[in-house]
């Protein structure tokens, strides 16, 4: 047991060091990622100025800006750049064989590598994030009460897990189709549109508004932001967290099942 923990700890440490090589690129990249927010602020200011009413579906202009900033944070947790495509590449090139030979669990390894990736990302990105949030502090309604804050943090962690297992499952599909890049692109489009990263989901008309409630995507961007802004409260909040947890558990199982099924039909292409 101890040896096992030590193995995982070593893997985590190596992954962190590997990640730190590119820290300069990281910090700059993070700051640049906020640039589209600037245009969104101008765009929504113009929309509210023309709309005449100060409220669109319960959102003021400041709410919308705060919403976009918060979804950036949620996406920092739930987005998994290169995870599915990395699995697909390993399957295609035969590198995945090492997980069949070595006593290391593929999903566990990927999860640790991803945690290392995120830990480094947050430690470097904390500066740019804090800076932008400080500059934009007037858009926020203020700190939410403690219990909401706890729910918010919990939803962020769940968003990370959901993003990880959902995308890892997508990656496992490459055991069946060798080239999944187009499938991943469609998945990316769906998450962008239906996670609420592009706009608050409230502005969707029916039946789309109801449909997104039954999809897992909204828990990766919309839900944490809505929790922070107090759009989801009381029992609704508790239910939301429970459904989010259910999605996470569902994809943990699905991910493992697809991996096992994939291993069974894997025929080891490449060198």
């Amino acid at each position, binding site marked *: 047991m101890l040896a096992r923990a030590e193995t995982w700890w070593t893997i985590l440490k190596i992954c962190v060091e590997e990640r730190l090589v590119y820290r300069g690129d990281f910090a700059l*990249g993070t700051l640049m990622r906020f640039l589209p927010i*600037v245009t969104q602020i101008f765009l929504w200011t113009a*929309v509210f100025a023309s709309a005449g009413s100060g409220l669109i579906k319960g959102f003021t202009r400041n709410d919308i800006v705060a919403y976009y900033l918060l979804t950036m944070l949620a996406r920092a947790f739930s987005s998994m750049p290169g995870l599915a495509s990395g699995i697909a590449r390993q399957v295609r090139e035969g590198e995945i064989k090492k997980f069949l030979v070595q006593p290391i669990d593929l999903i566990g390894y990927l999860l640790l590598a991803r945690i290392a990736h995120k830990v480094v990302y947050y430690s470097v990105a904390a500066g740019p994030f804090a800076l932008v949030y400080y500059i934009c502090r007037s858009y926020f309604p203020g700190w939410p009460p403690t219990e909401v804050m706890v729910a918010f943090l919990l939803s962020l962690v769940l968003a990370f897990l959901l993003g990880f297992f959902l995308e890892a499952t997508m990656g496992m599909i490459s055991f069946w189709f060798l080239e999944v890049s187009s499938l991943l692109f469609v998945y990316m489009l769906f998450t962008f549109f239906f996670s609420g990263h592009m706009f608050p989901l409230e502005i969707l008309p029916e039946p789309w508004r109801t449909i997104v409630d039954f999809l897992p995507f909204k828990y990766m961007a919309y839900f944490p932001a809505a929790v922070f802004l107090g759009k989801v409260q009381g029992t609704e909040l508790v239910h939301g967290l429970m459904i989010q947890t259910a999605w996470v558990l569902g994809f943990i199982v699905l991910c493992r099942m697809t991996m096992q099924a994939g291993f069974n039909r894997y025929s080891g292409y490449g060198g």
Partner: protein
Amino acid sequence: MSHHPSYLGVFLTFVRNSLVRDMTFRANFLIDTFSSMSWMIMNLGFYVLVYQFTPNIAGWGKFEFFVFIATTMFVNSLVQAFFMPNAEELSEQVRTGGLDFALLKPIDTQFLVSLRRISWSSLGNFFVAMLLLFYSVPRIEGLELSFWQVLLYPVYILMGVLILYSVMIALAATSIWLGRNQSLYDFWFYITNFSRYPMEIYQGTWGTPLRQLFTFVIPILVVINVPARLIAKPLSWEHSWLAAFGVVATLGSLLGSRWVFKRALWSYRSASS
């Protein structure tokens, strides 16, 4: 053999080669076309949603704005088809030393590295833009197109493409100094992101300087605003000076980027060969 290569002949060869290459992987070609189209359609969907709540955005009515989006799609599809793959490859060639071969050829280096590959699948959006334009123009109230508008619209789209090309090749050329410019595409996306909105939305303490910066220093706001205005809102006074300025901005960008490119080439030291 003449000392001046036929630029048109070389260009047509590039066009043909790229088409042959794209058609070799036909399924991939179709998927690429489809995915770049679906991206733009999703973007359009966002504005359809926004226009539920407001009659206009900074003076742009729904169908006027659709013309704006169609213009964006025209410009972007042309840039992505002709220049994007080449600019990406330039950075890679600098890193690997492959640029040596381009320098040795008896043809203008900038021409050669800018047009070598043409991504035909990116032109899918060109046709979506065409449909969107033909759908939106008749629905703009009180709009009557004159002969001049129809004639100048493609000209200004072309100028927009040239401005964006200038920015792109200048950015790509900096990889000669920086060694590697991996985030070129990211940077490109974030900068051109500013050009995708009507310039009227940039107002106020922050907006006005931003608008001036992206009009006069890096003229990316001219790229889409001028042709889109020309079709959708031809009667405003502002338009006439913008149209004149568009010509100046295009020439300035082309000359500026040519200068940056040549300067960068002087600093080129071959690598790993």
